């Protein structure tokens, strides 16, 4: 016998409602119903209404209690047999599209250009809405001028690639077998506070880190396909987030700037962030990142390495060991264990501590 079914649709009861809410089922799914039997209660903006079965058969629910069902949409089917196939129809309840926060959204033109240029979408992390103009800007061209692949140029001119030693690769393979879901590791040291104030300390940390990265180039690099890629430039980014979205403004060639210059640039970038005036230029091509959560009262945390980088430095809040004692704070380094190891990271942090503590209190 040919399977037949009858769809029960939501009637238009009021001109004001484009959907109704399913309050409860009066018949469970798969149960037999008689024509005219009450099957469900629905709620419009004006009243609670009862739906009746138009024919006899087996009730096959298509919506859950509490769901909004569009007027004209199917709420259930009534089939001749208990297991007759159901007609192909769109589910009336569409779950809301969920995208992770911070993930950028691209216009059609932007996406087309990104695909054409073979850019990695991750390069636009934290960028909100990305238009074609933003992609062009990243590519180092302005609309109207011929395209120049920016990323490729950066790699060619500003990165030195070196194959990793087989022992290092074996070590990474070994470590990743230990149930670690990532290959980063973390070390920290305690540093005496020198009464910089929050912004001043951040500038000093950026200034000193930039210099140290010349000594420890492995933290100013990135891993790719068995190679370590050393950046020639030292572009230090710092994480900033208030009630606005997280951004990482970049201080370019930070190793060539003096402390006053770095301090001013930090202040300018913070101001631009607060005024929503950060330009794309200030947000791309970072080679190392610093995240300072001292303003949030966090003493210790585990920062995450940014895309295309090898390490990230965390700065914790000041605390005092005793009421009269000098303040201390933690410096934390998360690093890519495929490129380096705990001892080098500790050495880097000790050097940084020594330099920061050398500032007069």
């Amino acid at each position: 016998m040919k399977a037949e079914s009858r769809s029960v649709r939501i009637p238009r009861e009021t001109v004001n409602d484009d959907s109704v809410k399913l309050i409860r089922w009066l018949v469970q799914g798969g149960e037999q119903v008689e024509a005219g039997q009450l099957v469900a209660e629905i709620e419009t903006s004006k009243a609670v209404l009862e739906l009746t079965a138009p024919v006899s058969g087996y009730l096959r629910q298509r919506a859950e209690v509490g769901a909004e069902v569009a007027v004209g949409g199917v709420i259930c089917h009534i089939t001749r047999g208990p297991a007759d196939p159901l007609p192909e129809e769109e589910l009336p309840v569409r779950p809301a599209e969920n995208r992770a926060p911070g993930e950028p959204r691209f216009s059609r033109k932007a996406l087309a250009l990104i695909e054409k240029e073979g850019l990695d979408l991750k390069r636009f992390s934290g960028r909100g809405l990305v238009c074609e103009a933003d992609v062009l800007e990243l590519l180092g061209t302005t609309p109207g001028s011929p395209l120049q692949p920016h990323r490729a140029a950066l790699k060619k001119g500003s990165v030195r690639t070196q194959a990793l030693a087989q022992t290092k690769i074996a070590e990474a393979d070994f470590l990743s077998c230990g149930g670690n879901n990532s290959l980063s590791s973390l070390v920290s040291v305690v540093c005496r506070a020198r009464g910089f104030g929050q912004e001043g300390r951040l500038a000093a940390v950026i200034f000193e880190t930039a210099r140290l990265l010349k000594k420890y180039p492995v933290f100013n690099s990135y891993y790719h396909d068995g190679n370590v890629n050393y950046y020639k430039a030292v572009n230090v980014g710092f994480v900033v987030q208030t009630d606005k979205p997280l951004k990482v403004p970049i201080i370019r060639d930070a190793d060539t700037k003096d402390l006053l210059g770095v301090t001013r640039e930090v202040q300018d970038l913070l101001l631009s962030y607060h005024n929503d005036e950060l330009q794309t230029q200030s947000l791309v091509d970072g080679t190392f990142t610093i995240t300072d959560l001292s303003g949030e009262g966090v003493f210790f945390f585990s920062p995450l390495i940014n895309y295309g980088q090898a390490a990230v430095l965390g700065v914790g809040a000041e605390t005092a060991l005793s009421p009269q004692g000098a303040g201390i704070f933690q410096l934390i380094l998360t690093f890519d264990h495929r490129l380096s190891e705990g001892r080098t990271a500790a050495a880097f942090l000790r050097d940084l501590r020594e330099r920061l503590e050398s500032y007069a209190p």
Partner: protein
Amino acid sequence: MDTGIYGKALLIREVERKLLELFEQGRLSGTVHTCIGQEFSGIAVASALREGDLIFSNHRCHGHFLARTDDVEGLIAEIMGKRSGVCGGRGGSQHLCSRGFFSNGVQGGIVPVAAGLAFALKLRKTSDIAVVFIGDGTLGEGVLYETLNIASQWELPLLLVLENNLYSQSTPQRQTLAGDILARAAAFAVATGQGNTWEPSALLAAAAAAVQRVRTSSRPLLLKIDTYRLMAHSKGDDDRAPEEVKKHWQRDPLSRFVLEHAQAAAGLQAAATRRVTAAVAQAESAGDSVGKQGDADAAGPRRCVWAASGDRAEGRIAELLHSSFQRNMRRDERIILIGEDIEAPYGGAFKVTKDLSLEFPGRVRNAPLSEAALVGLGTGLAMQGFFPVVEIMFGDFLALAADQLINHAVKFHYMYNGQVRVPLIVRTPMGGRRGYGPTHSQSLEKHFLGLPGSRVLALHRRQDPGAVYDALFKGIDRPTLVIENKLLYGARLTKEVPKGFLLEHSDDPFPTARLRPQGRAELTLLCYGGMLPEAEAAAERLFEEHDVLCEILCPLQLYPFNIGPVLESVRRTGRLLVVEEGLGFAAFGAEVIAQVAACEPQSLKAVARLAAAAHPIPACAALEKTVLPGSAHIVEKARSMLHES
């Protein structure tokens, strides 16, 4: 014989004569409507009243005012435009206010306001009454009959005093009046009484009986007082036959009293003259009401602080409105809901007042189809400290109540020199897209924007409407019109913020919502009420398909309007597109663009507006779509703006 009432009548006449004299000397601004010949009607009614009773009078109000208050000095100073006047010189001759006495210069509209005063007295369970003075000319005003009907049906202690002087300005009654005057009242089961000013003692008795009956029965009564105006309606507009006027002078009881009781009259007259002369001298020496009045409602652009919008309320908007009314009515028994079809079981055309009449008996009132009278009733209640909410079933019908808002409710606070507040809420659905056709789909708010002393709010999907009413019930200080787009009722608040945008609200008491793209916005899209979902859909399409980022601004408060957020946004984007669902000519968009152009023309690279086509709204859904602006129109207009600039 009671010389007391003759003394009062002589004093009133002396004031009126003096006012005519001052007018001729150019010492008054405007004109005066004197009651010479009609003095005893005010005296008779006032003599029957007690302290808590309230009076609403009309353009010819000096006699009523003096009979009730005896404030010769305050009246003369007021009409001479002095600071010491009862309304500080703001009201003048026709707009007086003092200790439970009010007057206004538009015919008919004061009647439902007086009924509202009476309603307040009744709700407060006093045995005080309200009195309204009308003339036979007022019999031409429809709102009078709306009010007679409601006053009778709701048993309001309202005394209507009809001074029948046979003329509407210069037009004789035989040209304007059909049927019988008292039969009009009888048709509404309103009791009647009669008297005339030629028999003062009998009139006093009739007035006393009328007041007593209203007070004890708590029902309305129409007291017709036949009288005759001996001077012109105002000035230089008397075309009555001189013989007719002369005959009435001879019949005038005050003239007869002066003839028959010369000695007593001379004493009273001298006292009246002395008092009036002194009052004029006192007023002359008082300061003029001067000083820049400025813009009552604009404080200039205000820079806002923006905060990310928090969690939003759940449920359909009709339910959110309902629960706000419920919780506020539980908290404050001064909240009274009046409207058509709002009681259970129907609960209003959009179910906002569902079952509230069961929980709050007597505080949710079904009314006849009388929009003007309903708003007037609300105004009277509000003047007495209640928080009335008048529901107009469809915004289109608000036109029927325009006089009540424009000439009454919004004016009182200013013209009575701050002596009254009118915390009245009028709420009404506006807007189309429902196929209701030309008379149930309009967005008429532009006709009610810009009335000094008023507030206009437009609810939208990114603002909890319950919180809006909570705020109103907590701090309402003025007549407030709340526009509720009719698509809102069945809808829920929009929760999801479009990906890549930030939703923020300004720190205004009735905030502006802002949807800000994370990127460089090139266009400010300003809309309100029901246009917000269209604007949001357009903004998403403009980004996805056309690479254009726009910032959306959606103010909750349309008047008084803070242009600050618009200026702030236009400085960033350089382009402004205003979208509204109503007609565009002389409307909100025109005003906003004019303000931006006046404040900061240099910020504007491009400006445009979208509004309904200049066309009645057709019922057919397909045709309606072509008349009302939608997201496709916005996308098209925005693209052309970017293309051209």
